[in-house]
């Protein structure tokens, strides 16, 4: 096996375009991921995240542009590249009537790794108590742990995690995060697709925000927020939706940057405190009751709404 070359980026995506019929899924996307980076591809459904992951996995080819992994293209290097990639799909159903251990043994044979590796993975993913349970009887979180465990069987240098926690409850999600966080200490590189901003914030050093096949912004979390979000966010919750609408009209007349979502009206402001005073006085004058009021720092979700005009989890 060729040794990894630290001076070469782990993943390079150059001018990549991919279309399905007349729909552009990925549009001239460029990014570089270095050794040991944990990178989040953040975006709502249909942003093009999975298409990029599939092109990096080598199972679909870009229409144009180039993808290199550890400095190598897929053509002619399949065996090596498959041996350094660990993949967890958005949703995989394994054989229902196989146990956890049997499923891991199967994939261990496919990767040609030792039997001891199966026991290591069971320990690493905390599936010891469930090792003899049928896959059919596992919870969503346990199934996802199994999927991550399988992706680790070949001791991969690069992990491709496609929405590993979608649909899981908060506790299961936290357990998956802990597993992924522990893997970072082992020096692996990871691309994680998600539409949970807190997942990206917790796990990743670098964030690539995508919408409709394009990259909107990329960088580390603090840089992104500092670059795009001076000041803070004011969020006002009205008593009823008509009240929220009245409040929205009112605020719009003095600050054209507000948005409304059900009973909430929120806006970005470089000087939130004076603006807040002004809004409260106008609300009182117009007899619009306000239930809750918040002045907070900008989050990735806020930034995404500002850039794409939609929520990350849409």
């Amino acid at each position, binding site marked *: 096996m060729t040794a990894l070359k630290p001076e070469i980026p782990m993943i390079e995506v150059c001018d990549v375009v991919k279309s399905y019929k007349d729909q552009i899924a990925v549009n001239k996307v460029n990014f570089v991921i270095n050794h040991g980076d944990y990178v989040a591809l953040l975006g709502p459904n249909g942003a093009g995240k999975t298409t990029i992951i599939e092109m990096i996995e080598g*199972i679909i080819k870009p229409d144009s542009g180039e993808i290199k992994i550890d400095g190598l293209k897929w053509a002619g290097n399949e065996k090596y590249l498959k041996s350094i*990639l660990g993949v967890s799909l958005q949703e*995989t159903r394994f054989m229902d009537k*196989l146990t956890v251990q*049997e499923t891991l043994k199967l994939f261990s*044979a*496919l990767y040609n790794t030792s039997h001891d590796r199966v026991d290591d993975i069971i320990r690493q993913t905390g599936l010891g108590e469930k090792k003899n349970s049928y896959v059919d009887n596992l919870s969503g979180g346990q199934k996802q742990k199994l999927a991550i465990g399988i992706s680790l069987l*070949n001791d991969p240098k690069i992990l491709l995690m496609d929405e590993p926690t979608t649909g899981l409850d908060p506790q299961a999600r936290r357990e998956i995060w802990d597993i992924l966080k522990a893997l970072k200490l082992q020096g692996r590189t990871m691309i994680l697709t998600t539409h949970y901003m807190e997942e990206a914030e917790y796990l990743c050093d670098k964030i690539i925000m995508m919408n409709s096949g394009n990259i909107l912004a990329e960088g580390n979390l603090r840089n992104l927020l500092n670059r795009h979000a001076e000041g803070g966010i004011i969020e006002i919750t009205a008593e009823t939706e008509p009240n929220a609408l009245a409040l929205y009209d009112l605020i719009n007349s003095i600050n054209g940057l507000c948005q409304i979502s059900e009973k909430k009206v929120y806006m970005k402001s470089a000087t939130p405190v004076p603006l807040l005073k002004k809004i409260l006085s106008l609300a009182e004058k117009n007899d619009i009751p306000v239930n809750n009021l918040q002045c907070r720092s900008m989050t990735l979700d806020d930034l995404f709404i500002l850039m794409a005009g939609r929520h990350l989890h849409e």
Partner: protein
Amino acid sequence: MNRTIKQLIVVQMKEYWREPEVLFWTLGFPIMVASVLSLLYSFKPAVNYKAAIIEYHARTDSAIAKRNIPFTDTREIVIPGKSSRKISLERMTMQNAEKAYQSGKIEIIIEIKDGSTVQYYFDPANERTENLYLWIDHTVHENNDGIVSKIAPLSQRGSRYIDYLIPGLIALGIMNATLWGIGWTLIEFRIKKFLRRMIVTPMKKLDFMLSISLTRLLLSIIEAGILIIFAHYVFGVSMQGNPLVFAFVFLSGHVAFSGMSILMASRANNTRVANGLINIITMPMFLLSGVFFNYHSFPDWMITLIQYLPLTVLADSLRNVFLFGGGMANVIFPVSYLLTFGAVFYLLGLKMYRWY
């Protein structure tokens, strides 16, 4: 055998044994069919029935002419009250007639012993043939009161309906095991994204296909073995030919239907489509290929087409070895046909195959 194939086979066998419904339909159902059909040979309407009339000497001929028996100068009898159904008569020697009866090409043998006795050979357990006998005998007696009818039951091993049925059921089992076992499994793996997960490992695609095919071959061998043992001990059915030749025909049938399964499963990505496709492929063969009833009752133009159906080729060849002791020379052409058929479909299927 490499570790990947071995492990793939082991997990598929486990998956198979852990599904009680699958066990019933693949192991229990063929035995149930064999038992029920051997007891209740249900009537299947057909346009033309075929009967053999044993060649006789000139001396008997003149006696027959005197008696007005309607077999001397006619090749067809119209069934009384059913003008659309006819019985075609073919003259042959007793030896050929018995062989034709065993292979299902004719349904009854008629021998005119002398001017006054007509002897019928058939399996009395077979209700359909019994009806046929009654119709023919009615025609014979219509203008000949003095004729004596005798029945010589063909119930020795090799001549009964169950003997005809068992090789057909084995052929049917191969078709079902591959089309449902391979085709359905591949489609289900695709739907579950299990194939998608496997192709990002260094697994060779050929290893995967081989493992699927070998698993089904093993299961088909178990199914056929159980059926043969059951038929032997319960009905006294036994194989006349060389088991190795039988195994060779069996394998060629498996190859033919494996190729067909892979082509069928190459694009389908939902179970309803799969269900429809499998039924479209299997139903015509199930009805026409002579698994349960001989297909020689169909019009000649249909027989020509039916004879090229892979299930017909397989069932006829298995019967040839099982009932008549046919050797390699007797089955080499059908086996070549099945192997070629399988290889072409397999290559086409692999070329078109969508892995996720």
